[in-house]
């Protein structure tokens, strides 16, 4: 439910906590579109760096700029708080938002630790507020199509998968927080792995981490990793990289057929029955474009559009009580899997290292450090 504001204006009010690269690259455009369509209004921007809030405030005339969330909450009463601060601060900012009566849309990764994630879920439950997690790939219509094919048994049983996602990191981060274990909790596993694991959870259910290896040294975070995973009815391997290209995509093989998804092909999957020809299938799945019941629907084509639809879904959860694509309780499975990975981390065999280099890399692996 929305708050009733003094002005009587029932347009949902948004607070953005953390105004770094993800907000500048993806949320800014989506939020402007929401404002221009009269769907929501940004009332507060929070970031310790005044240059960032000032730059963003130019796009949102009615938004106040604040250095801390506490200052912002003293002046504004948001209906929905978008938490886009560094992951190690997500719990603090989400819990504070719930305490002030706001619902929360939290950027991925949900939290830097299982304890933090559980604290967020408990706070949302106690406050009876929505905790939506920003897993934009849940908005991909390719995911809906893959789920439909799996549900129809098109691939048969004994499912095996390989999911690779890698490339040279190009995200225009404004700090080095993503590259420190103390602030990010990890490296490529936390970053890309959150998306990839969530995608697999959406397809197969709760994961069990069988094996995990990465290339992080004592003072670093992993830039390459491999995970062996078991799900109910499926098992396979995930490989992630920040430092090099991989043969990107998800390939699922079953007793009756094969399915392929590419990370940049949001709209379609490719599949074939055993012995048959490959077929490209576009999903008819759509999402609501605004808050009206029975209003127009659409399909996101870009990552930016996914963010727009994701915010709309979070607002519809607030206004109409509809389910969000993924909530905090569901996302706990991903946070737990990531931390299961780190608990059993071993040194990854890097094919380009000489034997002596690999031995030194093994000895420097972060898991061996006190």
């Amino acid at each position, binding site marked *: 439910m929305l708050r009733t504001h003094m002005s009587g204006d029932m347009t949902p009010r948004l607070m953005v906590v953390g105004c770094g690269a993800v907000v500048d690259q993806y949320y800014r455009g989506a939020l402007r579109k929401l404002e221009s369509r009269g769907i929501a209004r940004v009332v507060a921007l929070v970031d310790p760096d005044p240059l960032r809030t000032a730059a963003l405030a130019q796009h949102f005339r009615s938004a106040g700029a604040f250095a801390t969330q506490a200052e912002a909450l003293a002046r504004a009463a948001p209906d929905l708080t978008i938490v886009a601060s560094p992951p190690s601060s997500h719990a603090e900012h989400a819990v504070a938002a719930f305490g002030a009566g706001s619902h929360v849309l939290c950027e991925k990764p949900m939290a830097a630790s299982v304890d933090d994630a559980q604290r967020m879920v408990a706070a949302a439950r106690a406050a009876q507020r929505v905790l939506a997690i920003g897993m934009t790939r849940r908005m991909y219509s390719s995911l809906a199509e893959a789920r439909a094919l799996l549900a129809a048994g098109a691939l048969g049983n004994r499912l095996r998968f390989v999911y690779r996602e890698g490339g040279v990191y190009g995200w225009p981060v404004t700090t080095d927080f993503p590259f420190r274990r103390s602030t990010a909790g990890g490296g490529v596993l936390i970053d890309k792995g959150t998306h990839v694991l969530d995608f697999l959870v959406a397809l197969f259910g709760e994961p069990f981490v069988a094996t995990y290896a990465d290339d992080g040294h004592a003072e670093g975070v992993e830039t390459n990793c491999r995970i062996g995973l078991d799900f109910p009815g499926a098992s396979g391997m995930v490989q992630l990289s920040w430092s090099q290209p991989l043969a990107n995509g998800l390939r699922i093989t079953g007793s009756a057929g094969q399915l392929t998804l590419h990370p940049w092909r949001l709209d379609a999957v490719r599949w074939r029955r055993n012995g048959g020809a490959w077929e490209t299938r576009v999903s008819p799945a759509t999402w609501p474009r605004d808050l009206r019941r029975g209003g127009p629907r659409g399909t996101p084509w870009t990552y930016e559009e996914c963010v727009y639809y994701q915010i709309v879904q979070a607002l519809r959860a607030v206004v109409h009580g509809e389910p969000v694509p993924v909530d905090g309780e569901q996302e706990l499975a991903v946070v737990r899997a990531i931390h299961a990975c780190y608990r059993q981390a071993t040194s990854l065999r890097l094919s380009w290292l000489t034997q002596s*280099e690999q031995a030194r890399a093994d000895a420097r692996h972060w898991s061996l450090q006190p």
Partner: protein
Amino acid sequence: MNGPLAILGAGGFVGTRMLEIAALRGRTDIVPIVRAFRSIARIANLGMSYRLGDASRPDSLERALAGCEAVVNLTTGDPAEILRTTRSIYSAAVAAGVRRLIHLSSAAVYGQVERPGLSDDAPPQLDHWMPYAREKGHAENFLRERMAEGRLAIVVLRPGLIWGPRSPWVLRPASELVSGTAYLVGGGGGVCNLMYVDNLVRSINAVVAHPEQVSGFYNVADDGTTTWREYYGALAAGLGVEMATIGTLPGDRYRAGLSGLLEEIKNNLPPYQWLKRGLSTETKNAIKLRLKRAVSRDRPPPWNGSPQPVATRDMWHLQATRNPLPTARFQATFGHRNLTSFASGLAASLAWLRFIGLDEREAVEGAVASAAGVATLAAERER
């Protein structure tokens, strides 16, 4: 050395390997310098301390170079920026009191290496059609003039195609071989002037460790002569690809096909370049998909179409190279010898291709797309 060694362009392909080797040997006298935080990602596993510095701004770079004894320039990026960046690095190095500058140029300054026994001091081809080669040549000439002033020792290294695990010169031919789009010019008899990345790193380290303040230009390359046919043949054999699937182009002159012409027009069109740089990879792919879908009138566009060989002008010229680069001068001056043979480098490269999943045929088109995406991201990162 009495002070640390600064690495500019530390987040690039060569820089990453150089830092990896240094970290695994426990060296603590290396200072990676990056222009933006995102460049740290590629070396984030090493946990090395770094400094921020913009190679195109001498004031920013001078601070980053403070206290350093030597600096290695491995920066890449927009050809139009090469000369400006080289000037900036030189000014900053002088101002910071750096004693030795090692500048990575390219054998591309000699075009197709048309003369045998080319002197290391031979002037670059400044009228080359390729902007990269031309600008590298201008940067060399700038440094040649500075060498005469003697304010610090300047060593310019000219490698050929830097190959090995994680190199575009392995990924590109391997992706083309696997997707059936590889081709050889004139039967592949041209010389492929390869330089294995570890051999290059050792060459740079040999310059840094040299007891005297030497200045000069030096060609560097792997031992022996490898033709393009031998290189592609070795990769194809390792990937299980039949040589018969490799196309052949006439070697007498470059003939631009429709795809090649389109590529050239796109690459020389400033608005296209501006868009290519400014848009995210996801957005570019979404636009391409929308265009494809509009053309196919709302039927699902093909997954990736049937890939066709695209004979680019730069690749044609590289494959038409006639002579190997003489490297005797470098070896004589720095007492250096290459430790990695072609066979060892090839084995490591093939192991890497398996590591990234390129040998899995079903995933091939993803890898090709990924290679294109990586090139874009790498260019973005270096800017």
